């Protein structure tokens, strides 16, 4: 009986050791770099660039009880915007249309009541809505003075508003977004400043980050009197932190999100300023074993 118990304990200990060693291997290098072999360092680089493209998103819609009417309204709304933009005769403007949708039906009264604190709403007939997003791209703006650029963007917004296009979310959407904890529409801001050549710049940033990592590793190797080997592991560390949803009794659908306006990953910003492109790498270099000593040594 005692022998059987001892045998079982050995099995348990064995499994426990295996599980521990597997866990050590599975853990990401970023969380426990000290346990890795070799030299692990961060290589960081950042370059800033002025945006060279301005993107303005307009939502063009046609809504009516009859689908034929909705289509005419959509057709004309789109036509008016395009004609107005054509009148500007700007060579640097291009227009893309995407996201054409045809949706039917309106929110039923019960849904409206739930959203609006049980408040009864006036009944409305179902409508057909035809909509799409028109993206206006104003190119080659890097060398334009900010005041001049803002003036040009303002002119485009004026043209759109005079054509009856609503810029950004409407009042009802804004209220609903706030209630649902979706923020004030910062992420869907109609005007975005974009570094369109972000890929080329990012290449340079990577090169700099790699060089930075090697420099750091070399420094450590020198101080520890070891020889730096080749990189054995490379991991890119996200430069932005993910937004955590938190619970609040006042916002049952989530806290309103704040938008800092700058998205270094995609090279876009809602603010007219230099956009920074950051790269952070975690690199593990091997430590080369010194060759065995010879007679000459």
């Amino acid at each position, binding site marked *: 009986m005692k022998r059987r118990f001892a045998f079982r304990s050995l099995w348990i200990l064995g499994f426990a050791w295996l599980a521990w060693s597997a866990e050590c291997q599975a853990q990401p290098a970023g969380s426990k770099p000290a346990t890795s072999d070799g030299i692990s360092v961060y290589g960081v680089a950042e370059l800033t660039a002025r945006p060279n493209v301005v993107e303005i998103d307009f939502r063009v819609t*046609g809504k*009516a*009880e*009859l689908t*034929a*009417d909705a289509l*005419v*309204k959509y057709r*004309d*709304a789109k036509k*008016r915007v395009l*004609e*107005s933009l054509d009148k500007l005769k700007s060579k640097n403007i291009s227009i893309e249309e995407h996201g054409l949708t045809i949706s039917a039906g309106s929110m039923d009264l019960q849904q409206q009541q739930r959203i*609006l*604190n*049980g*408040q*009864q*709403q*006036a*009944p*409305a*007939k179902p409508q057909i809505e035809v909509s799409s997003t028109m993206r206006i791209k104003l190119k080659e703006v890097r060398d334009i003075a900010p005041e001049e650029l803002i003036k040009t963007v303002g002119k485009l917004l004026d043209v759109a*508003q*005079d*054509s*009856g*296009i609503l810029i950004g979310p409407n009042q*009802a959407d804004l*209220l609903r977004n706030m209630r649902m904890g979706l923020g004030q529409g910062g992420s869907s801001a109609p005007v975005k400043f974009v570094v369109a050549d972000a890929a080329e710049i990012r290449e340079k940033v990577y090169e700099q980050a790699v060089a930075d990592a090697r420099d750091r590793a070399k420094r450590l190797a020198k101080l520890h009197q070891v020889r730096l080997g080749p990189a054995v592991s490379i991991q890119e560390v996200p430069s932005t932190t993910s937004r955590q949803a938190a619970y609040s009794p006042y916002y049952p659908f989530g806290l309103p999100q704040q938008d800092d306006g700058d998205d270094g990953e995609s090279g876009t910003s809602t603010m007219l300023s230099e956009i920074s492109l950051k790269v952070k790498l975690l690199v593990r270099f091997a430590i080369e074993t010194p060759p065995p000593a010879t007679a000459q040594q």
Partner: protein
Amino acid sequence: MSSTSPARQENGCHAHARGRLRGNPVKVPLLAAWLSICLSVPARAVDVVFSTGTLIAETSTASTRTKPTTSFSLPTQSAEVKDALEEFQRLVKHQAWEKAFKALDTITSKTASGYIDRSDGVLVPSRMLVRNLLGALPTAGKNAYRVFYDSQATALWEKAVGKTEVPNLSQIVNDHLISSVGDRAADRLGDIYFEQGDLDQAITAWRSIITYCPESKLPKAQIFIKLATGLARSGRWAEFRDIERTVRERYAGEGVELGGRRITAAEEIARLAATGQSAEVATAPALPADLDLPSEDDPLWQFRYQSKVDPLNPQQAFALVDIYGRPRANNFPIPAAADDKRVCVNLFGYEMAFDIVTGKLLWRTGKLHQLQNLQQMRQNQISPERYSIALVGDRVWSVLRDPEQLNQNPATFALTVRNAATGKEIFSSRKSLSTWSILGPPYPVGNVVYLGANRSNQNRELAVLVLNASDGKLLRTVTIGTHQVDQSQVYHERTALPSFLAYRDRLYVDTHAGALVSMQSQSGTFDWGVLYDSPPPQTGYYYNDYQPPPQSVSAPVLAAGLLFCKGMRSSRLLGVQPDGPSLAWDRPVSQTAMIVGVDQDHLYMGGEELAAYSLQTQELVWSTRLPQSAGWSVPLMTRNRLFQFTSRGICEVDKATGALVRVFRGIDLDSFGGSLLITPQALVTVSNLAITAYPSNSLSPKQTN
């Protein structure tokens, strides 16, 4: 177009009705079904005669139309009349003609007031019902009718000379149209009305022969040509084209006698059509000429309602609050009117007049700061839309309530008439009609003025008061019907105020609550009523996020022989053919839309967007969304342009394409927009913040395209 003759078509319809009556003796159709058969058959027959396209429109509107949901009730006939109808239906089925006609006599004797519901939302008075019932009788029934009533009709016919001619002929047409002299009486009556210049009545008389007397021995081509002449002379070209098509297809070679000479129907219809083309061009200048908007933003003058703008609330000139003390958005109408000398405004009962050139205050009935003090108080029932002002000749007509009694409920509004030059009161309904509360703006026509009103203690009632325009004395009161919702209990939405249209001897009243009514303006006798979808307003206090829908109000308009109306809360655009009546249009449109005007080819609507609908096809031709504007902003239509004062300035839109031609910014850019007044001296904008006049030197008429 079918090749079947009109007579055969009409007989076919009647035979169909008869077949249903005889072929199904066990199942007694309901009264509504019977009425639907009786009253829609002649209308269908007319449409078959006129055009296949119209028939399609007719069947897609009237016959398939379900009874609308309205918030207004028109007076209906008593149960006795309904019983008599059922009795008539039963007796016709058994061919007991004598008793059936006695039942009809019961209906005829109760024709004083009240409508009969045609079960498709169209209500007709009993006399019209009787004519339709007789027209729908089978041949045996018509023969029996002649046996019983020909003597009466013939006696009237023989005595129809001199002064008694028109009354006698009218009585034959109204009561004995299917008698052996009915068709001749209608033809003669049409001739008399035509000679008198009353083209609509002439058209109605001639059309009744085609509709109700298919077996008439009168030459069809002659009647059609008379009808076509009447339609051409009155500019009803859409209806004319239907008649033209029928004549060309069926009666082209038949001779007609006109002015002592005999020509073919084809020649005459071609001649009338040729005059139609030039007439269409000639009627275009009825609209005001196009204008060049000012080139500079500098105004002649501006009057702001607030002497000092509150920086925290720059867009709220009037500190109105709701029942919970929260600020109420200033998105309500500011009643204003202008002529070539002055601009008048009615601000919650304080009337003011400004010189149109200098902006100098000419007179006022109170000081604005008094109003600001009053508005600090609790005013949940202020109903800004009930105030109005109109400048007619040398008089200012205002509907208002005493500003010192703003907190007294229910509100009692009165009509006050002042001398436009001095502001001196000429008369007020507050004294002479103290038991009435005025609903909506006054509608002066010649020597009389029409007013919507309810008795102070009956807030659901809607009546039309007819006043003498010179002294304000009450001439006549006509009760239109009853609102389902007490209008003094509507706190968040606009109250329903009637709109009027007077055309020749008819007055059309849109209640904006679900009913359009036609009445004879002299006698106040009802012709018909049409119900349309109009949901009842939300009542009660709402603390949370109730968003009242924006509602725009427009009066009915006449175009292409149709009466168009769009109720304030309705999402349907109706086009009613007044003779009949029959619904030619019953089309969904935006609930916030309003009628702006009509021209030869299009009907224009405003609201959240400007839109043009084809009068021929009912299709939406173009739609233009303008910058956001006040809900009460009424677009202005000229010969080739539409103008609207929006939150981003005055927009000029091409009527043909809907393209935005120009935006004149002006200086009132903090406002929501509002109304636009054009006078020879100045272009005046009235917003929720200010009255602004721009110089007229640049308002020269533009060359038309």
